[in-house]
């Protein structure tokens, strides 16, 4: 069975931080993601990119977390972008027109 929650790796490139998310961004990952987000908010970066290529699934709670991240990072002037979502995750982002809100690089 797939492991619960998400794992992530950080790649720091000056004022740009890339967060590679792995696993499932869903209700079981909520607390973990909120903790990550709290760290990102105080990171003093100018840009944060979530690399979604390792993300196998996102549910509605996970989608809500992306919107929360965008709002919280926006308040401290950090631009948020999404990178390389897999097919199933991209399907969810398209269905909910999240693709129109976020900068997504495929």
């Amino acid at each position: 069975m797939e492991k619960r929650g998400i794992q992530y790796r950080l790649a720091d490139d000056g004022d740009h931080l890339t967060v590679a998310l792995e696993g499932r961004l869903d209700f079981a990952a909520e607390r973990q993601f909120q903790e990550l987000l709290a760290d990102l908010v105080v990171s003093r970066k100018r840009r944060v990119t979530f690399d979604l290529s390792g993300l196998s699934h996102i549910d509605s709670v996970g989608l809500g977390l992306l919107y929360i991240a965008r709002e919280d990072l926006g308040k401290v002037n950090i631009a948020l972008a999404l990178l390389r979502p897999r097919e199933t995750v991209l399907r969810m982002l398209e269905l909910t027109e999240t693709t129109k809100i976020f900068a997504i690089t495929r």
Partner: protein
Amino acid sequence: MKRTGGAVQTDSALSPGTPGIGRLIRLPSRTAGWLDSPGADPGLPSVLPPLRPNRDSLAVLLVEDEPGDARLVQIALMGCRQPAFAVTHVSSLTEAIALVASGASLDVVLLDLSLPDSTGLGTVARMKDAAPRIPIVIMTGMDDQRLAAAALEAGAQDYLVKSDDPERTVGRAIRYAITRMASQIERETLLRRIAQQQRTLMAEIDAARAMQFDLLPRPERIDSRLSALGLEVESYFEPSLGIGGDLWGCLDCGGNRMSFYSFDFTGHGIGAALNVFRLHALISDRWSPKQTPAESLRLLGIALRGLLGRGHFATMFLCTIDCVRGEIEWASAGAPAPLLITDGAVRFLDAQGVPLGLSADPHYRDHCEPFPPGAALMIYSDAITDAPKEQGDLFGEAGLITLAEETIARTGRASIADLIDGFQSRVRMPLEDDMTALGIRRLAESPP
């Protein structure tokens, strides 16, 4: 209120005489927010029993028929202070039980196991029956570990070997027995309290669940309309935690038209269920048969926007079936793409759209497709596509369309009951999300 030298002043803006700034004053809660009083078990002490060895004097009932042994114990206990022991001595179990029955206040029973009217472990059981909450220390003539263990099993709190030096051991054994009994009672009380809170909570959730099921359309209210329109509707609704964040419904447009919707809030459980009631009320208030589905979704999206917590939203599908024109018109706020089944072919409808509550200015598109007699629509929640299969990957849209095609090939139609059977045999049960599945079929020989 402030008191200054006997005069009473108020600092509330609501009070006359204060130059007014309109404002809301929310008084803080005066409870911890959780009451276990409704239907409380009257047998439960509200405060846990004190650990009695802390008292200055403890009442001991000594049940011993050997006068010499009784004397030794009494002497040993007389020497104790902090606490002191007040000993009542009887020589038979019958007398001991009668004393307890008379209501005598006792802290501990010292019980010999070979009495004229009772011997062995049965003595412990009978004493226990007579006084279930008074700790018992048994006294044995020999150091028999097995008998001691069996006595503890039978409900005694401790045991003493008479040949040991009673002055050294009896006071300690009594105090330990009382402490042990107090812990035991405390544990039992806590368990009963937890069980009772659980019962209260379950009853509350059952009541909420019944209210949620009451929101669903009922055959007796809509069957005459469905019959006139030649529509067969098959629904399945199963919240994962008793109550949940899904709902479906139908709205009568009058004439030849009927609208159907399904929505699903983020998360599940009580919070999501409360949002269900919100949106159901908003639909009753804002929906009109004169609006297109897209217009209705926009109004609902705007209304929900200010009500939901951060990161919360609802996906929703809303369609109107016109049985004379033979068309289905729909709009979607990011709902799972429904399946349209016409002439035995299955495909997904376009269901793109921003979920309700995520955008302050949402816009939706109306779509229209032929929906001739024999056509069917399957609307469902993402519990289906997000369900993990045994191998761990998700059932997905691919799993659903394959299942629908296989079901149609086998049975000639895609009934919701058959689809759910097939679905449940292919995924890992139980589901962790609320599940709704709704099938709407135009009967081949439609009356209108």
